[in-house]
């Protein structure tokens, strides 16, 4: 389905059709095909006869619109035009996606077919004319949409992305009842779809955690919407992605980081900032968000300059832009300096050394945000000093949090601050806790940092699904109503905002001198 929609998306691009519109077209087209093919009797099996309909344990309806039809369906009622019409609508709405997903189930999947899942495969629109079949279909559909086992399917590229193992570790930390079913997608979309099929048809999963690969997000969004199953993607929303109430994003967001930085700026009363960022996509994303958030919060962004953090000359050039030291700036002033220096040297009988002549930096900003890792930042700080900028608060994000920022200590960092998505390491869930460095209580060994990050991401990703899985009495298609959405809870609690993205808590740290070295404190 995904491939097909993609092709159609491209095909209809010129017609300005959205992906959603294309999906609807696909849906109806396939439904029409099914209807048209039915009379020819090409189905693999004859219509299922005598399959007993089992009523759902739930009295709730699958979706708001369709639920009434489903609930109002009376098996005892004789076939009527209206029932047929409703059946067809349901068929068109659900049967085709289910048929597609069923077809993608693992070939060796063994399911004890107590619910007549085979009906999905054979179901055609014509079956709506047959009372018994219609009843079976509606019953099956009701079950598929409402029943859930309390299991959570976690589908991640375990063998292709090493860090996902730490996500699994973090996820399992919240799995005392062993509700997680772990799948390895190997970064392959067909495998993801196959496991989704297994999770939905076989395990009746309450929710799905996946989407580590951005390429998976569209499929997951469709599945979550069509099957009314909560999906928690370990990712950020893609641009132009269609929002639906079953698709959530659990990854920290650039916007969240930007919010935290601006909050810290305001805390330190830094109202004018400049942004330096390496020229990569994720730094660009944060910088863009930072500009937006800063503007909305009354913090002025004077510069937003990128650099190649592999080249000292590029870093210096970027830094020069911040302080009006670019090669062609202030030429007249530079000429005057040269002439003065020449005169002084001549008066003292010394040789004029042009290397001793330099423009003084013009520092207009209260702080400089450097969206790069601590190593790059340390070099950048030395470049600032080289340019004559001795003392200026530097501001950073989670990539600053390292002993490498303060050891060996450069006093230029005293008073600088940064934000992170993890607070005190001693406060992380017990199973994930890593001992702090002996001399830096807010830091841990660098080789554990990233592991813990991903473990915490895994932990956060399953936090809500695990809660949902416990509400077995709640129809699955209604689980979205249990997803926390308020912001009035404590920072450690999880909630999702209007864009269905998670509120990663953020923390503010400050660099302070300590003895002959430096330290990091949590503000």
């Amino acid at each position, binding site marked *: 389905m995904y491939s097909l929609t993609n092709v159609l998306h491209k095909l209809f691009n010129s017609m300005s059709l959205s992906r959603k519109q294309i999906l609807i077209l696909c849906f109806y087209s396939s439904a029409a095909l099914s209807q048209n093919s039915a009379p020819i009797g090409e189905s693999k099996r004859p219509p299922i006869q005598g399959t007993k309909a089992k009523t759902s344990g739930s009295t709730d309806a699958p979706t708001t619109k369709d639920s009434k039809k489903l609930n109002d369906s009376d098996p005892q009622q004789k076939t009527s035009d209206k029932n047929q019409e409703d059946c067809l609508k349901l068929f068109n709405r659900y049967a085709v996606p289910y048929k597609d997903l069923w077809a993608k189930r693992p070939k060796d999947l063994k399911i004890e077919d107590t619910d007549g899942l085979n009906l999905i495969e054979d179901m055609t629109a014509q079956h709506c004319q047959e009372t018994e079949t219609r009843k079976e279909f509606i019953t099956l559909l009701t079950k598929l949409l409402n029943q859930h086992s309390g299991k959570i399917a976690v589908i991640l590229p375990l063998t292709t992305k090493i860090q996902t193992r730490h996500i699994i570790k973090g996820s399992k930390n919240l799995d005392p009842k062993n509700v997680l079913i772990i799948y390895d997608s190997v970064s392959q979309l067909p495998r993801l779809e196959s496991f989704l099929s297994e999770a939905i048809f076989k395990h009746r999963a309450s929710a799905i955690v996946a989407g580590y690969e951005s390429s998976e997000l569209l499929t997951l969004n469709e599945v979550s919407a069509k099957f009314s199953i909560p999906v928690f993607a370990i990712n950020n929303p893609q641009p132009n992605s269609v929002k639906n109430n079953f698709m959530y994003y659990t990854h920290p967001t650039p916007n969240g980081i930007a919010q935290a930085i601006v909050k810290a700026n305001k805390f330190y009363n830094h109202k004018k900032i400049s942004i330096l960022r390496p020229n990569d996509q994720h730094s660009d994303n944060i910088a863009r968000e930072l500009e937006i958030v800063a503007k909305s919060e009354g913090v002025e962004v004077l510069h937003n300059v990128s650099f190649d953090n592999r080249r*000292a000359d590029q870093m210096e050039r970027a830094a020069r832009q911040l302080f009006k030291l670019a090669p062609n700036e202030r030429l007249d002033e530079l000429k005057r300096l040269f002439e003065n220096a020449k005169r002084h040297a001549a008066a003292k009988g010394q040789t004029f050394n042009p290397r001793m002549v330099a423009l003084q930096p013009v520092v207009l900003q209260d702080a400089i945000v450097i969206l790069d890792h601590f190593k790059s930042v340390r070099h950048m700080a030395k470049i600032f000093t080289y340019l004559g900028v001795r003392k200026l608060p530097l501001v950073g994000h989670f990539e600053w949090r390292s002993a490498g920022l303060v050891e*060996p200590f450069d006093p230029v960092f005293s008073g600088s601050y940064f934000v992170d998505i993890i607070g005190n390491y001693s406060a992380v869930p017990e199973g994930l806790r890593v001992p702090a460095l002996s001399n830096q209580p807010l830091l841990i060994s660098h080789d554990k940092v990233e592991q813990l990050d991903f473990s915490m991401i895994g932990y956060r990703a399953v936090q809500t699904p695990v809660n949902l899985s416990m509400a077995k009495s709640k129809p699955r298609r209604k689980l979205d109503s249990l997803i926390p959405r308020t912001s009035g809870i404590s920072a450690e609690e999880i909630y999702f905002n209007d864009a269905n993205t998670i509120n990663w808590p953020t923390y503010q740290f400050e660099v302070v001198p300590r003895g002959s070295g430096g330290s990091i404190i949590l503000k």
Partner: protein
Amino acid sequence: MVYNLGRALGVLFKHYIYFKDERFRSVKQYIYKILRIGAALSLTLCLALAYYAYQWLNQIGAFHLEESRITSLKHISFSDNSLVFDRSGNRIGEFFNRYQIFASIDEIPKVMINAILAIEDRQFYKHKGVDFSALTRATISRIRNGKITQGGSTITQQITKQLILTPDKTIERKVLEIFWALKMEKILSKSEILEIYTNALFLGNGAYGVAAASRRYFGKDVRDLKLEEAALIAGLFQSPSRYNPAKYPARAKKRQKMVLNAMQKAGYINKKQLKTALNAPLQYVNYKPVNYETAPWFVDWVRDNLSKVLGDKAKKIESNGLRIYTTLDPDLQIAAESSIKANEGIFSNLEKTTYIDTLNESGKRNNARIESAMLVTDPTSGDILAMVGGRSYKTSQFNRTHSAMRSPGSSFKPIVYAQALLSGMKWSDVIFVSPVNIDNYKPRTPESDFLTETTMLRAFYRSMNTPTIEIANKVGINKIIQLAKNLGMTSPIKNELGSALGSSDTTMFDLARVYGTFTNKGRKQDLIGITKIETSDGATIYERPLPSETAVTVVPEQLAFLINEGMRSVLIHGTGHNSSELAAIATGKTGTSNESSDNWFCGSTANTVATVWVGTDEHVAIPGNVTGGGLALPIWDTFLRKAIQTRPAPIVFPPKGVYAARVDSQYGNSSSTGVKMWFFNHQKPQDTESPLQSIQPHTSGVYRRVFSH
């Protein structure tokens, strides 16, 4: 004159007796009267003459000849050249106003004596200082010919003329010469007179005496002279310049023939000997002063240094026959010179592209001459073992080891890092390598090093500038300068950070002292070249103190060891890597000043410090990105490989209080695959991996890839 007057009076007296005969009484009386008057007049005249002669002789000093002036000539043996010997006893230099080699009369061969006597004074053993008959012959000959055709002076007279009187051609001088000669013969024996004659008289080419002439003309000891050679030298006494064989070989040969003939005539040789000698070819040697042969710059330095060693006693060093024993090692000296010569090709190539500011006739800039120098010392004693002051002494006598003030460049850095270690830093400390600006001082470092991190040791062995400046700024340039002085720097050091990179000019002597102190376990030794000075009769007037008495501990042994091991890393991993094969026994540091105008390698084994410099006297830039590692190191390498053949390097054991650990050279943490670093016992490298290792250098890799998976 008195003699002649006496004889005249005698004749008159004889005639007086004859005329007393009666037969001639009247005539006699008349004549007698005349005679009596004549005699009276003559006597009066003679007395007057005698009186005036006496007065004249008295006036010219003929009766006041000081005996001491004659006896002092006996001490001619003390008026000897001062000789300089290397540590093996080879003569490597001579200091003299006059080129003299004293040879006692017993040491002078008979053939030489005979040749001299035959041509100069055949009656030497017969006369009493003056050969009157020869003198008369010479006088008559002069009167007849109007010029001097034959000499009438005896050897004794010639000594008088040359050594006591002035060479003026006056009656007075000639009369005094006779008086002096007569007196000398009374005071001195014939042997003594002959010894003086054969040692003291000028024989051309700067040589005084037959032994000196023998050495200078024939390059041999006087005892080894052959007949024909002795004859040639004997012929020089009359006119050394006229018969100088170096200038007038034909004239000298003619004179030699004359001497040989005289010898045969005097019976000293037979005809056969004469014939053989006449036909024997004379093998002259080109005069090459010994000072130039082995270690000319060193000999110059010894001469300059004598006054420092001897104080007032040094005034007569050039003529009082001192025997100066030095530290120079002849094998190492040869090795040092040949090592520089081995790189002549490189120098020549560099000269094609290296220019000085002056223009030649065609208006183009003149090419510079690439120079090189090497100083080799023994760090344990301070002995100067070899000294090469330049590529060619003939071209330039300027001693670049001692007198040239040059920028040491990075070869100053061991002092900076020593102070850093003293101040509590350790080799594994990490430094971020980025541009540095300290009070507008912006040292240059290759940009490829920027954005990397390094341990202090790696910064040292790769000779990085900006980390060194940061270290210097941290520990304080004042402390570094003080340490430099303690280690042996005597040149003034500017109180500015640039000095940490070697911007203050210094000498090779200074660097040799500093490196020697590190090699000698922190004990400073001043450099010495003279071990002992004796007079020619064997009396010691100076002897160096024992090295153990002069060594001054200026830094702890452990610190010296750590610095030395740091310099071993230079050879193993750093700018001296091309000589890594020598790292097992040697340590060292490269140095390159701005624009490569000075290129150094200062390296050592436990018993030898060798400092090499390459540059130009005009301090001009040498193009082509040359460095101390590229120019000076190969010379040092060549030298050391030769040196250890005769001077094996002892094994160095670590002192107590230090230990080694394997450490990641870039990030400073313990690592089994890291480089070997030495620490004081109280220091410790970081146990855990550096967080910097999570981000690879020169990649855009990110830390905490939360957003970049």
